[in-house]
């Protein structure tokens, strides 16, 4: 912004300089011309007086020429170029020619004056003006620039602070106050706004945590009571069916709760146990684990070892969620393929058609179809883990397969 105002200043100065110089040039040149003409007229008058008093007027060609003529002409004022013997070159003169009848004689009196001198004066005046005004503008330019920078400094510092503002950061904003009322107000408003945003965010986070936490105990009570009822007497198959169905829903609720808490924890950066982790090894364990639960065969193709610096628990969650997602959405029970190659871990499963809204894949509670009984949080967690460690996650649908790939950096 300061550059912008400086530019404007320079342009305005330049235009002003040009205009004022031109104006000065014409003014001074007119002034000089008037002077010259006045001088010419006064010289002519003196010559006339001399002629009237019959003094022999002096002649000083080319400056003063007196000739007797038969007829009178018209008084004329013009610029002319004649040879100046003193300078031995053609020079520009201002020339006044008058015709007078003095003592019965007709005279043509021509007085001339050299314009060169007045031109020099003109140039000197314009040039010195130009230099002065240039100096003034240069000084003003740097002065105002320095001053602007100082005045705007709090604004720019605060702007930088705002760019670095993060809701998750615990670092407070370090804003600079200013004597300028507008900047002072701006600072106050930014402070109020960011404090509000932060506290809202914290409240929301706290709320998610609290809800998840507070739900655990009632869920535990319901679950325990159901188990005692099932183990009690006088239960028929119908009642049992319903009770186990409730158990299933409690299980779902519990899963959702756990995953929400996990998401919050990842967002809060609460996983700080960073280690060098072999993703291939963890994936190997995950596949072993899922081997018995999956109807489809899981083909494990380990081309290269993949190392990542991350929390081992999150590495496990990452692998588990990717594989369980593939198992869940594997249609026609074809093979699930897991490959580790060149820092890319990819998992693919059969699918009938590409996902309609791939941009929503990682959104919480997004499900492609209502029929699915997933929590809708698995891929959201995967995405958060990838974001946390700067991994790139991609989805594509090729040759009838859904392929998720994670590139570790």
């Amino acid at each position: 912004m300061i550059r912008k105002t400086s530019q404007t200043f320079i342009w305005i100065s330049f235009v002003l300089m040009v205009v004022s110089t031109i104006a000065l040039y014409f003014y001074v040149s007119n002034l000089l011309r008037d002077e010259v003409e006045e001088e010419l007229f006064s010289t002519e008058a003196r010559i006339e007086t001399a002629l009237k008093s019959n003094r022999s007027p002096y002649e000083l060609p080319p400056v003063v020429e007196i000739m007797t003529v038969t007829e009178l002409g018209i008084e004329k004022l013009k610029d002319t170029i004649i040879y100046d013997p003193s300078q031995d070159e053609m020079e520009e003169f201002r020339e006044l020619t008058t015709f007078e009848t003095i003592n019965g004689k007709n005279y043509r009196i021509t007085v001339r004056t050299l314009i060169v001198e007045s031109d020099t004066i003109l140039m000197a005046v314009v040039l010195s003006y130009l230099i002065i005004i240039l100096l003034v503008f240069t000084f003003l330019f740097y002065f105002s620039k320095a001053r602007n920078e100082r005045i705007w400094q709090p604004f720019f510092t605060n702007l930088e602070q705002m760019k670095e503002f993060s809701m998750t950061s615990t670092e407070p904003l370090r804003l600079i106050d200013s004597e300028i009322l507008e900047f002072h107000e701006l600072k106050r408003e930014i402070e109020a706004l960011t404090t509000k945003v932060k506290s809202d965010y914290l409240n929301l986070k706290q709320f998610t945590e609290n809800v998840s936490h507070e739900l655990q105990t009632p869920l535990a009570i319901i679950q325990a009571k159901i188990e005692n009822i099932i183990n009690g007497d006088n239960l028929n198959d119908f009642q049992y069916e319903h009770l186990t169905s409730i158990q299933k829903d409690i299980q779902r609720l519990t899963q959702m709760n756990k995953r929400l808490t996990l998401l919050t924890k990842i967002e809060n950066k609460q996983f700080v146990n960073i280690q060098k982790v072999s993703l291939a090894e963890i994936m190997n364990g995950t596949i072993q684990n899922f081997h018995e639960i999956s109807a489809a065969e899981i083909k494990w193709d380990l081309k290269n070892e993949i190392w990542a610096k991350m929390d081992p628990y999150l590495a496990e969650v990452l692998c588990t969620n990717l594989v369980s997602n593939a198992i869940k959405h594997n249609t026609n029970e074809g093979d699930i393929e897991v490959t580790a190659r060149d820092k890319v871990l990819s998992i693919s499963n059969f699918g009938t058609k590409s996902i309609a809204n791939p941009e929503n894949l990682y959104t919480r509670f997004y499900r492609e179809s209502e029929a699915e009984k997933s929590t809708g949080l698995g891929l959201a967690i995967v995405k958060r883990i990838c974001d946390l460690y700067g991994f790139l996650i991609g989805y594509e649908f090729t040759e009838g397969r859904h392929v998720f790939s994670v590139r570790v950096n």
Partner: protein
Amino acid sequence: MKILIAEDETALQQSIATYLERDGNVCETASDYTEAAYKADLYDYDLIILDVNLVSGSGLDVLKTLKKENREVGVIIISANNSLDDKLDGLDLGADDYITKPFHLAELNSRIKAVLRRGKYGGDDTIDFNEIKVDTKSRSAYINGKAMSLTRKEYDLLVFFMTNRGRVLSKEIIAEHLWGDNSDLADNFDFIYVHVNNLRKKMTGEGAKYIKTAYGSGYKFIED
């Protein structure tokens, strides 16, 4: 066995007690920190089930005192907080196991038995039931002295059944025991049925017909 249940939610406390008493355990309860600390100090228990968040204090403090006094007692921590740190804290302080709310009583029972096996019986890591013998240290099972060839899950299933004798175990409970957080995957397929059936076949082949069907879709490990 004498068990202290320190849990401030009375409903949960009573449910746990009811479940455990059916096995012939003697259960006492404590509803807040003071009562828990008092009872743990005064009486001898085989096991204490300790909630981390007791109304007036932390269950972990009760644990600390017990460990400071070198008391021979098994401790299972229950917590509403599913955080790894809490779990590690509890285990570091000397708890024998850690379980997160909500949990199945059968699961809790199974863990109690495991803790008691390790502690009280002085390293006797076996579960016996008639002709079946399970060595939990080597994770192997024997029937009439003959080693059974079981998969990992079948072994887990057998131990789970044996520690919850006479209980109705629904497929939901079994799935969660075997696959934990991933048990929702078992939803779509009848894996439990496959696993239970395989185990059942291996047992009945040797004449051990203890796994019965209950209410159509549940299971019960019971003597004829």
